[in-house]
């Protein structure tokens, strides 16, 4: 008897297949875990792929110290639940120099995330890192392979990517090279939400609307997750207004714009996403600095 697999079943099978290939063919894999919804799905898929074993690799959180408190909470909880080792890496230099999103602009992302990631991978000697990027997120991602090779200096050469045929992945690398693997490349934002909904996957509560303290900055609404710290860095206490807000994407709290919303359940969140007219990365400042080819340029420099 035949049955047609649904699109989510096919995507799930593909992602699990990718993860098993990486584990079988690399020496020291790691899963980059950013605590967002994509990471949540990726972690769930990893648990499915290797069940009843725990996923045979650690979770790595490249921390900027500026994430939402709720994210840190869920991160620790999920690591415990999955039985995986959690590694948290913070770029010491960025810490020493007090790099922050207000005074240092793009340098904040560069030092904490781009440099932090490179340093973490070098520090632990990981040769393969899972990332939760999706091809529908951004134009240069659409052309990235599932197995994406980085030079010893973590650079990406878009014109020199290995062809990927069928479901055959070439994971062989030369000394010094490392691989970033994107097991959920072919998922869209809607797929992610539907999968979370179907499988009851725990996500950070910030994705759901609630009354939260907010302030406006350069025309966008932000959440005042740590008012004292904001005041210290901004030099003055921002004007706080309570609003019903939620987040479509999660990053550093001073860099992640909120949307006003009444969606308090997953179906409502999905409903809002479907009826909305702006793309999910719109709330992120990162794609805008550097103009048109911003993400492509960042990736060439080693950003995930």
């Amino acid at each position, binding site marked *: 008897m035949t049955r047609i697999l649904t699109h989510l079943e096919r995507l799930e099978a593909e992602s699990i297949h990718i993860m098993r290939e990486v584990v079988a063919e690399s020496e020291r894999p790691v899963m980059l875990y950013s605590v967002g919804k994509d990471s949540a799905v990726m972690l769930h898929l990893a648990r499915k792929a290797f069940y009843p074993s725990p996923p045979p690799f650690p979770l790595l959180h490249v921390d900027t110290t500026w994430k939402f408190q709720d994210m840190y909470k869920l991160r620790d909880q999920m690591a415990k639940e999955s039985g995986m080792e959690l590694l948290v890496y913070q770029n010491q230099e960025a810490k020493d120099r007090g790099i922050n999103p207000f005074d240092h602009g793009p340098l904040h992302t560069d030092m904490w995330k781009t440099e932090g990631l490179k340093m973490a991978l070098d520090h632990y000697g990981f040769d393969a890192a899972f990332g939760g990027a999706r*091809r529908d997120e951004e134009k240069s991602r659409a052309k990235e392979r599932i197995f994406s090779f980085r030079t010893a200096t973590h650079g990406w050469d878009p014109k020199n990517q290995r062809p990927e045929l069928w479901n055959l992945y070439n994971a062989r690398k030369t000394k010094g090279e490392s691989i970033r693997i994107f097991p959920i490349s072919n998922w869209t934002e809607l797929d992610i939400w539907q999968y979370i909904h179907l499988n009851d996957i725990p996500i950070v509560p910030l994705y759901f609307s609630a009354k939260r303290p907010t302030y406006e900055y350069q025309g966008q609404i932000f959440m005042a997750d740590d008012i004292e710290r904001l005041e210290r860095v901004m030099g003055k206490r921002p004007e706080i207004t309570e609003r019903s807000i939620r987040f479509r994407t999660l990053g550093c709290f001073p860099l992640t714009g909120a949307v006003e919303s009444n969606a308090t359940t997953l179906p409502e969140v999905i409903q809002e996403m479907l009826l909305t007219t702006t793309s999910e990365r719109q709330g992120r400042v990162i794609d805008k600095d550097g103009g048109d080819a911003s993400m492509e340029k960042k990736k060439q420099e080693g950003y995930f």
Partner: protein
Amino acid sequence: MSEADTIYKTDALIAEDIDAYLETHQHKSLLRFITCGSVDDGKSTLIGRLLYDSKMIFEDQLEALQADSKRVGTQGQEIDFALLVDGLAAEREQGITIDVAYRFFATEKRKFIVADCPGHEQYTRNMVTGASTADLAILLVDARKGVIVQTRRHAYLAHLIGVKNIVLAVNKMDLIDYDQDRYNAICDDFRAFVREAGISENFTSIPISGLAGDNITSRSANTPWYGGTTLMEHLETVELNNTDEQNKAFRLPVQWVNRPNLDFRGFSGLISTGSVKPGDAIRVLPSGKTSTVTKIVTLEGELEEAVAGQSVTVCFADEVDCSRGNVIATADNPPEVSDQFETTIVWMDDDPLHVGRSYWLKLGTQMVSATVQQPKYTVNVNTMEHLAAKTLELNAIGIAEIATDKPIVFEPYTKSRALGGFILIDKITNRTVGAGMLHFSLRRAQNVHWQATDIGREEHANLKNQKPRVLWFTGLSGSGKSTIANEVEKRLNLMNRHTFLLDGDNVRHGLNKDLGFTEADRIENIRRVGEVAKLMTDAGLIVLTAFISPFRAERDMVRAMMPEGEFVEIFVDTPLEVAEERDVKGLYKKARSGALKNFTGIDSPYEAPLNPEIRVNTVEMTAAEAAEHIIRLLMPLK
């Protein structure tokens, strides 16, 4: 953007009953397709249009698009949809697409993954890459230009890689005033090509305009003469491949052995074909060991059945050896195991194929060392001509034999993409240098390694100033094979050609003295002679063989061992009554009396050649005349 345009997202249902909406969308299927076309055929515009019409473009993207369109677009003040998909900065500067890009959209019925493949010649590898996972290919044709060389190339490549459905999208209909005759002429043209090239896939043609939106998601008023479906309807309703895969025999290439503790041992992988249930008898390849499936384990509980396309972990009743690279198969219908194959290879690297060099070959979850022989020929993808070649350059497609250092589990590509498709990896640079498709095993796996040598058959033959060949004489006992072969050899010798005659009776005194005359022994006799003849042609010789060789299959087996054109089947056509009357060795008499068993023509069949290269009739010709006739037909000898 007008909200009325967004016909593929039922906003009303989303707004009114999100749970009902989610319920329908959880049951969507997935179709993967590729779009191919040359530069300027409007491929990016079409994809941009599909995304736009299925409302996958958000306002902020649209704003950026409008700004970009005015700045760098090619459509004046109009929206340039192509800018939506031309992702890399380098491409936007050059106005072309340089790499495969994947796009996503969904309608009520399906989710779609589109591989956008660039059309220029140097990117054949990208198209093959995109097509390898596709269920369907859209070939875009500019209505003003019709079917061009690139269209043929794309159709051929889609066919080669086994894409089941082809859509000929005749684009830019607006620029030819929706001319029906012109459209029909283009379709006829393509149909003729498809027939000629032997492309048998389902093919549909649709007149469209990506720019104006004709017949993309709604039937166009500009083409009242067109009665078919819109492009989107076609994509939504075309039959999916993955159900076919479930009807084939069960295959599970093992990726990873799951062993969390001493009490659990499971085998994880993606089911490539068929289905499996607890209680099924399975066989592990290549070892051939059998066991029974006890359970199919997942995080959400055990499954009653799993089908092709699912990633699972299965457990066995017995402690059977099984590791990564093995294939778990249904016990009574396992796949083959071999180490030598005929293949089609697409070369994907700037550094050409090095014949005889050892590459990594990855097939399913198996990774072995492999050497590629000199290609038998390459295919000119524009004309479909077969060309002689010593190697494979970037984007070349060639037919070549491959030998692996140990036997691998495989199936012909036409039966299974997962067990018939492979990639070749350079051992030094680790780049994926080629991709290929296995067609069949050349010989029974014997664990014999192929030694690449510097002086090959071509060097040997050049020195002898001749083209090596096997002149394979076949016919009844007493038909005159040995006599005529002898006459032919004498003449070749006088012409300064290097020859060797393998005679049936003589070979049975030495090489084959262990063989009798049963059917199996006769087959083995011919196989050995074929191998010897092949070695001799490798040495540059013209080999003459005189064997009854009564079975077509064995003669064809020997033919398949040789490069094309080197096997010359010569049918010594003598009727049974004539041969029996001659009875030079008195064998017919013995056979008739029952003293000799399995005698060809008496109590064992002779299958006459259906289409021999040369036929000689010994009733009408003497042995000398027959020899002259053969020599004439063999010319030129170089």
